[in-house]
């Protein structure tokens, strides 16, 4: 490119050079530069390649609206693609590289695509790859893989580094009275005014410097030089939380604003452990959007060549960064703003010609023309750009006359002459940044006078100020910002003088979106980022994509990181022209968050890796760890899986543990069971209504197994409730359903039975539970009980006892219930959680002394499958009481939740799936949980191929011998006992036969647990 550093000017620090690398070569910029300005200052180009045609691209703008210079930053796990060079703050050691090119952006073999451009017009792959052989979708799916590989811009991380994001991020919650978005003249004035009125103010600015387009202009503002004015306003912000490098990317309900704040990526020696960025969720009392406006380009032939820029960007590079975009500049415009750009460049010694599509009178104001003329700008009125000459850089600009201007801003003209130049600036008007207010559902309204879309209404608590409201002069923007702050102060009751909003001066701009060369076709781009041309829009219209939303998706105009910042208005203007309708009739596409890209990592914040979900540990967790137990997840809980002895794998360990329980005794941590304290004079009545079986007459210090249904008659959960007093129960529920049950009980008390005097509260974390099971279980307890009676007489089956346990360092109180999940003589011992580890240690020692051992949930599963007890695997939201073999529990003497709906014909029908045991017909054959059961004698296995049942759990069974499954079969054991079913596991590619058996084969009389 033709850029270079001017000998003077700019607000960069010329005494502080910064070294950076571009595609592996070292270059030097200055403190205060962006990567874009440093690239221009070093004359780098091309710096990027187009998405589709791989045409060379340079820096085109001076902000996040950049559509040309998309580059990759960093490397390895910290590699970030699609960074917009003008929005990247330069720092010592910055590494940047080209993307979407091979071998490099300077010489890219992909440019061959440009030669075949006629085949790559809008929708080319749909048309091409759906239809080559006429096989439609199938064919598309084959090509899709290739297309996906070719698509995209840059890589998120180098191959092999994609497993994780190396950076940390924070999510921060902020509150303030007033949030001002944008620190240009309007935003600075608004923030200072609001702060001066005593409000708690936050100011967010996407740039690293305050002042917006004023920076370095030397403009006189309220009697001060522009930079002095910025400094004066900044000095008034001492109590304001000013966030630089922070982009308000989304506006949500209740005016919650999402802000992406970059914290360390501009630092050369950032602490790698420090958060790279933060997502700030701001909840302000009022929002002032001083978001400015974005200049629009003019589409003409080869308007994407390196060296073609927005006119305002040229001005900013010269004024703020002391960078000249070239030595001979041509600026094309249809409004007054480009005169300032031309004047600035001419004042910097750049030979400058300005083409104004307007003729006088009615065109440019005399003041701007006089200033430009005085600076030495050559003016060509009524002239328009037609085509850039040059391949990888601008070598000249062919111009034409504006005589054929159409209503929608299109001019068709021949090349009349070529002007020599090395850079071209264009200004087709300005688009106020109304993205954020549009996020709240505000429909932009086309203002023909201003030639832009505006937000004519704003949601409550939100206002706009400055050029975001089409106030184009600095004075008006400042006045508007202050008035917006005064309005906010009044709304918040802070008082102060009311200020009036300034009126907009009518613009003399004319619409100019495209200049088309008559009699010839050259590519003219609306959206260089996606290689969308003016012809693409016309083609979309001709193919029936009449809706602007359809056109957007068909052509990709304004999609992805661009979000239509520059090309949307020209694109829909051309669509309107092609359809023969007005811009308001055509409408505008919907702006959605984020305004600029936000890393996924910043949305996750700390919720990643081990912190993705907080985990729950039982009070005995460390004891299990010390015993070498691996853990398995049960919801958020970590549960000890098994306790391997040296040389043991999981199977050997759990079989040993299960066998030990049957033969002597074992202990298992059951602290994860949900525990709910139910208190109040109506507690018994409450449980009586919740459970299918009766609880009203349960004696104090007795417990009872209960099952509760949902309203629709399906089983919700089961568990044992302990009656500790006339008016108090300790309800236990399954680990999986504990939260659900708690919410359900609260809902019942709050809405259905508010007359019941019952309080429920979770006490899951208050108690540590250990189950002691096996023939020697009572002997184990007797070893640790210091006070209390656990004899069979004092503590019968389903009885409860108070006791004091001997633990290391003293004695602790406990509640003991005689409950069995394993089918063995068993007890559940609950102590306050802080003594859980001590109690476990004492019980483990006693258990070992009786020849027992701790067991994990794998063995627990074995024991319960053998016994035919159900868990969450069976109570999966489809199961009725009868399905689970518990139908006889349902009381006929009282109402309970689900009592009516469980009698629906569908739930009450004969032949529903019922609980069974399954064992392989052939020795040594195994099957898995989730396998489907089919009737080998029925067509397609029964039920039109859906099978007759399924397997819910499997184990190797020491007690019953061999592989054992539990599951459901239609009709249950009554219909199938002794018969064979086919066990199909299509995912595993396995099939086999199993014999259906009763699930109550192990100790069917319960002699062991009643011992």
């Amino acid at each position, binding site marked *: 490119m033709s850029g270079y550093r001017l000998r003077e000017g700019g607000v960069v620090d010329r005494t502080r050079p910064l070294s950076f690398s571009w595609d592996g070569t070292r270059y030097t910029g200055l403190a205060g530069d962006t990567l874009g300005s440093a690239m221009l200052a070093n004359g780098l180009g091309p710096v990027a390649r187009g998405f589709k045609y791989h045409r060379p691209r340079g820096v085109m703008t001076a902000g996040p609206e950049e559509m040309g210079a998309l580059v990759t930053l960093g490397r390895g796990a910290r590699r970030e693609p699609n960074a917009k060079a003008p929005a990247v703050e330069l720092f010592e050691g910055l590494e940047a590289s080209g993307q979407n090119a091979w071998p490099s952006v300077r010489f890219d073999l992909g440019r061959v695509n440009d030669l075949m451009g006629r085949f790559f017009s809008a929708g080319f792959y749909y048309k091409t790859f759906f239809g080559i052989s006429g096989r439609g979708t199938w064919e598309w799916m084959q090509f899709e893989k290739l297309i996906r590989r070719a698509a995209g811009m840059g890589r998120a991380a180098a191959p092999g580094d994609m497993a994780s994001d190396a950076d940390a991020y924070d999510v921060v919650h902020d509150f303030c009275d007033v949030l001002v978005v944008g620190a240009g003249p309007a935003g600075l004035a608004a923030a200072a005014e609001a702060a001066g009125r005593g409000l708690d103010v936050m100011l967010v600015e996407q740039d690293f410097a305050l002042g917006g387009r004023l920076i370095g202009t030397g403009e006189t503002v309220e009697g001060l030089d522009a930079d002095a004015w910025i400094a004066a306003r900044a000095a008034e912000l001492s109590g304001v939380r000013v966030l630089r490098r922070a982009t308000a990317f989304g506006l949500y309900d209740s005016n919650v604003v999402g802000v992406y704040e970059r914290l360390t990526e501009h630092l050369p020696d950032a602490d790698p452990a420090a*958060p790279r960025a933060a997502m700030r969720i701001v909840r302000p009392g009022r929002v002032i959007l001083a978001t400015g406006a974005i200049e629009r380009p003019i589409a003409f032939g080869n308007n994407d060549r390196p060296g073609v820029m927005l006119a305002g960007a040229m001005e900013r590079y010269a004024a703020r960064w002391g960078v000249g975009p070239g030595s001979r500049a041509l600026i094309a415009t249809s409004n007054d703003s480009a005169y300032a750009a031309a004047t600035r460049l001419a004042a910097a010694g750049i030979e400058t010609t300005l083409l104004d599509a307007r003729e006088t009178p009615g065109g440019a104001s005399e003041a701007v023309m006089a200033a430009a003329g005085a600076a030495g700008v050559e003016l060509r009125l009524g002239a328009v750009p037609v085509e850039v000459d040059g391949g990888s850089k601008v070598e000249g600009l062919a111009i034409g006359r504006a005589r054929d201007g159409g209503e929608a801003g299109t001019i068709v003209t021949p090349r009349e002459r070529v002007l020599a130049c090395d850079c071209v600036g264009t200004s087709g008007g300005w688009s106020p940044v109304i993205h954020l207010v549009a996020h709240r559902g505000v429909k932009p309204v086309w203002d023909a006078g201003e030639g832009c879309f505006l937000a004519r209404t704003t949601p409550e608590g939100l206002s706009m100020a400055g050029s975001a409201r089409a106030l184009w002069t600095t004075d008006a923007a400042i006045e508007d910002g202050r008035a917006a702050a005064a309005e906010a102060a009044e709304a918040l009751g802070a008082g102060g003088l009311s200020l009036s909003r300034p009126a907009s001066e009518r613009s003399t701009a004319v619409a100019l979106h495209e200049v088309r060369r008559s009699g010839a076709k050259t590519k003219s781009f609306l959206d260089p980022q996606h290689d969308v041309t003016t012809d693409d829009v016309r083609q979309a219209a001709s193919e029936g994509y009449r809706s602007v939303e359809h056109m957007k998706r068909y052509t990709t105009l304004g999609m992805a990181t661009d979000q239509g910042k520059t090309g949307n208005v020209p694109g829909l203007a051309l669509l309107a022209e092609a359809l023969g309708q007005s811009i308001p009739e055509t409408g505008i596409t919907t702006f959605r968050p984020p305004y600029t890209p936000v890393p996924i990592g910043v949305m996750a914040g700390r919720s990643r890796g081990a912190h993705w979900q907080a985990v729950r540990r039982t009070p005995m967790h460390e004891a299990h760890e010390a015993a070498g137990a691996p853990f398995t997840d049960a919801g958020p809980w970590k549960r000890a899986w098994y306790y391997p002895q040296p040389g043991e794998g999981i199977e050997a360990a759990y079989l040993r543990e299960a066998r030990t329980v049957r033969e002597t005794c074992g202990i298992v941590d059951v602290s994860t069971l949900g525990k709910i304290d139910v208190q109040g004079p109506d507690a018994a009545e409450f449980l009586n209504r919740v459970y299918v079986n009766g609880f009203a007459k349960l004696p104090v210090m007795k417990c009872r197994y209960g099952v509760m249904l949902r309203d629709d008659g399906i089983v919700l959960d089961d568990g044992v409730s302990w009656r500790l007093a006339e008016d108090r129960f300790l309800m236990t529920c399954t680990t999986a359903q504990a939260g659900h049950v708690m919410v359900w009980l609260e809902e019942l008390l709050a809405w259905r039975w508010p007359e019941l*005097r019952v309080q429920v509260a979770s006490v899951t974390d208050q108690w540590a539970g250990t189950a002691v099971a096996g023939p020697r279980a009572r002997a184990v307890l007797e070893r640790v009980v210091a006070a209390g009676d656990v004899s069979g007489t004092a503590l019968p089956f389903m009885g409860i006892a108070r006791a004091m346990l001997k633990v290391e360092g003293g004695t602790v109180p406990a509640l003991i219930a005689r409950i069995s999940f394993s089918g063995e003589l068993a007890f559940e011992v609950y102590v306050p959680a802080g003594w859980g580890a001590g109690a476990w240690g004492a019980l483990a020692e006693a258990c070992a002394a009786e020849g027992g051992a701790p067991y994990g949930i794998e063995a627990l599963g074995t024991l319960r499958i053998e016994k035919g007890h159900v868990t969450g695997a069976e109570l999966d939201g489809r199961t009725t009481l009868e399905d689970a073999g518990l139908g006889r529990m349902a009381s006929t003497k009282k109402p309970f939740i689900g009592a009516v709906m469980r009698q629906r014909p569908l739930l009450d029908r004969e032949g529903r799936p019922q609980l069974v045991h399954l064992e392989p017909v052939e020795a040594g054959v195994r099957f898995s949980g989730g396998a489907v059961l089919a009737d080998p004698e029925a067509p397609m296995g029964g039920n039109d191929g859906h099978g007759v049942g399924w397997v819910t759990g499997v184990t190797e069974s020491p007690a019953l011998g061999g592989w054992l499954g539990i599951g459901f079969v239609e009709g249950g054991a009554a219909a199938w006992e002794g018969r064979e079913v086919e066990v199909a596991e299509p995912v595993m590619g396995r099939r086999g036969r199993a014999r259906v058996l009763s699930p109550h084969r192990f100790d069917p009389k319960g002699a062991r647990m009643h011992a």
Partner: protein
Amino acid sequence: MPEPAMIDPLAAPTVSVPDAPLPTSALAGRLAARKVLPAGREAAGVQLSERPIGALWQVTAWTPRLSATGAAVAAACGAPAPGPGMAAGVGSVTALRIEPLRWLVLVERGAEAGGAVVPALDPGDGTVLDLAHARTRLVVGGTERVALMARLGSVDWRPPAFGPGSVTTTQIGRVAVTVLGREESFELLLPRSYAASLFDIVAETAEGFGLEITG
């Protein structure tokens, strides 16, 4: 050796049982003193420590008996029963209004012995529930404590919005945590089973401000 006296774990302040060892902290193993200072920081902006709970009673009123229950809470904490979102107390007892009909009565370790501060509530007025073992109290102090809390929960933690004596229950790490504002710190009542995991989240987030764990 004489048989120890039977203690009803439902009725007594359960951390002060005679002859019982001190309860094991859910944060045991995480509280070893250490300091993490990121580059450029000379002092830790956040201090974390556990403050053991002596007793923690959840007191809930039957709807028409709110004032009677409030009187019991006031008697326990030595100050008028606090209103919603507030805490009050004298000396070693603090009452926290956590729900419209519900308080927590928090007693400092050592002051619970003898059960003098068990809220004396008539069952006709409401219920009392011991949660002393169900919560782990994490104290967040230091000059950057407000900034840290802003990264943990969506509450305006700055005074006066959340000054000393303020109480709220909010999500931290997607777990419901009750937070009490003190003069120089926040006290987080963490559900015991989540305490270690939440401590890790808090500590990792705090490291950016400079973290000192003081035990």
